[in-house]
């Protein structure tokens, strides 16, 4: 049996195919414990104003060390390309990293990505030397445009951010996987372990999730479940599933029956 290759993003190998968010946890300590249990090597982080009234308040970096875990700054909450660019330029200044997650949202209710603005921002970021992992709709046409623009990972939604509805359009995810030469990572929509497995069985290279772990009753146990779910889905994809049949096919031999 051939060993699996590591996930390669912008030339850097990662043993884990799970990327987790750092939002919505009860505390940064719980977040750090969930990270440990998940085995993830990349975490998404947001860029926000320092709290002036209490600048010594504990910080994310007090609990998760950016020297050990790859920080992936995001543009959550940005509804225009210009806001996203401003946020990521600040992120690069704060952390001195080029790898970023671009998302430009269109609508408060669905947090659906605005693909026109996303593509515009992606082109500018690539020209400025950023390595762009891009949150996008599950539209294979836009996925190709983003890849052609030089994005280092294409990250279509499984379903709406924070919805926990799982992969709603497996056909489109498969089409994106088939055509894309950079990693494809399902970003958003995973609700429980089986959703992550389904995504991996479609052949995606990884899954990014936040709420499914953070809002589980026991986030640390769910983080561990997700670690196994990602491995199970990946292994099943590599193994190649059996064909589906319309009727039963006995597993015990028919010959030698008494």
């Amino acid at each position, binding site marked *: 049996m051939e060993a699996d290759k590591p996930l390669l993003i912008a030339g850097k190998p990662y043993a884990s195919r799970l990327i987790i968010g750092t939002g*919505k946890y009860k505390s940064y300590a719980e977040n750090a414990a969930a990270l440990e249990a998940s085995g993830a090597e990349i975490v998404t*982080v947001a*860029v926000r104003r320092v709290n002036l009234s209490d600048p010594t308040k504990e*910080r*994310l970096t007090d609990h998760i060390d*950016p020297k050990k875990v790859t920080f992936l700054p995001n543009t959550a909450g940005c509804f225009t390309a210009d806001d996203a660019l401003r946020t990521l330029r*600040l992120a690069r*200044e704060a952390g001195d990293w080029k790898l970023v997650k671009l998302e430009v949202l269109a609508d408060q209710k669905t947090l659906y990505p605005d693909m026109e603005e996303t593509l515009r921002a992606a082109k500018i970021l690539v020209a400025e030397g950023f390595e762009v992992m891009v949150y996008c709709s599950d539209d294979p046409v836009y996925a190709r445009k983003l890849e052609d623009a030089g994005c280092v990972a294409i990250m279509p939604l499984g379903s709406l*951010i924070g919805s926990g509805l799982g992969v709603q359009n497996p056909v489109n995810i498969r089409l994106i996987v088939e055509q894309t030469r950079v990693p494809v990572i399902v970003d958003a929509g995973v609700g429980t372990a089986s959703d992550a497995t389904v995504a991996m069985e479609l052949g995606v290279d990884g899954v990014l999730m936040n709420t499914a772990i953070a809002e589980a009753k026991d986030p640390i146990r769910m983080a561990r479940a997700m670690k196994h779910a990602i491995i199970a889905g990946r292994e099943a994809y590599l193994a190649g599933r059996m064909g589906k049949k319309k009727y039963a096919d006995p597993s015990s031999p028919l010959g030698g029956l008494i």
Partner: protein
Amino acid sequence: MRLTVNGETREAPDSATLAELLASLGIDGRRVAVERNREIAPKSLWAEIALCEGDQVEIVQFVGGG
């Protein structure tokens, strides 16, 4: 002079530098980025950048997010 820092009005001594402002606010400069009038102020220049009346300063850091 009067400045706007992270959306709040703040008083600072005339011709204070960015480094002095951050120190007066008690902000640890590690893993922080600063924008002055929508332009990034590189960390290496904080000690040299003299602030002016009405400047808009944003100081950001990484927080938990999905």
